[in-house]
């Protein structure tokens, strides 16, 4: 799994982590049952605070994407959700937004307003 953060971004680091991991779970590149890196290891390699990683993992747990188990670490849940259609809709949305010269931020704002 590829995890990136950008300290120069306006988004908080834990949100960047959540977005990156969530995106890969939805796209299927992180499979159900896969174990996320240990928080300490991820914090060390990305040179960020371990509490940032833990906060991101807790966020993913609250959204139901992972389970946090003592001794087993963070495991991607196998709840029977099919993200395939959502992934298709998203690529459709992006294509349409690009055709209309909308920025990712603008598309995101439209989605938030309509929620």
């Amino acid at each position: 799994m590829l995890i990136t953060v950008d300290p120069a971004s306006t988004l908080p680091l834990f949100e960047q982590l959540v977005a990156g991991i969530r995106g890969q779970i939805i796209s299927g590149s992180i499979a159900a049952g896969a174990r996320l890196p240990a928080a300490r290891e991820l914090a060390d390699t990305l040179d960020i605070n371990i509490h940032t990683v833990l906060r991101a993992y807790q966020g993913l747990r609250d959204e139901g994407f992972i389970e946090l188990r003592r001794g087993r670490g963070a495991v991607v849940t196998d709840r029977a959700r099919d993200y395939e259609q959502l992934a298709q809709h998203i690529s459709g949305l992006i294509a349409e937004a690009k055709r209309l010269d909308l920025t990712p931020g603008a598309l995101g704002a439209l989605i938030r307003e309509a929620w």
Partner: protein
Amino acid sequence: MTDRIRKLLIGVIVPIVIALGGAALIAAALPDLPDPVAIHWGASGEADGFGPAATNLVILLVFICAYSLFTVLITRGEGFSASQKVMLTTAPFLAVLLTAILAGSLWMQRGLTDATLAPSVLPLLLVGTVVGLGVAIGSWFLLPSTSVRAAEQSAAPSMQLGATQRAVWMRRSAPTGTAQVFIIGTLALVTTVTIVALVLAAPPLLTAVYGGFMVLIALVVAASVYWRVQVTSQGFVARSALGIPRFAVPLADIDEATVITVNPVRDFGGWGLRWGGLGRFGIVTRAGEAIEIRRTNGKHLIVTVDDASQAAALLNALTTRATV
């Protein structure tokens, strides 16, 4: 002769013809043999094991046929590596050696009334080894020359990486499900058989030593086929499940990373930690997708891992960013 026919000739036809010759020899000797015959010799050259003569016939034919089949299986597909060539030339070597021992030892026992008088098998062992090596060397020159298949020249993948962006890629590398079942099953079977045999027959100390030995083997297997692979801002690192051994390539030592498809037997002569020749070292847990890291010193590190294109892309992007 086409290459395919040469491989079949050395791997299958020659060994089976030799084995059949040995079988004919055994069949011809059968009426004149003592019963039982000597089938095992001690280090001093005196016969110390006895059994029916047909055993030798069965062992010879079954073993050579099985090895011939093995050579067919490992030479399927494109390319022909040095390790495949060695395994092919081993077929006539084994056929000569086994025929010398299994058929020769019976031939020498013709006319004996008591198998304990059987002459030593050691000269046969020596002659079989020397002749076998000669045949194997001849076979080597008859086989087609090795062709390491050109690495797939797909462009090195890369990705966008901002100046302030931090990225890490992590993945586990392990054998496929079937192979894991096979590995664990084999270990369990060998361990069980060993323990049962020891508990029944051996003193406790020996049982403990053997038990420790089996645990050691299990650890070595675990260390060579289960890996954790990482790409970080430091570079590339692959660590075994035990933590050691560990192979790290600092970013500064990396020329370029690409994705290749590995055929374990053809490219590395098997699984585990392997030298593949021409400065190529491999961590091979399964067939298929692998990351190939070309170091600035010209050496290559190859690690079979899923999602290798993402790893290679990140590694290339990090390398490019570090040099700009």
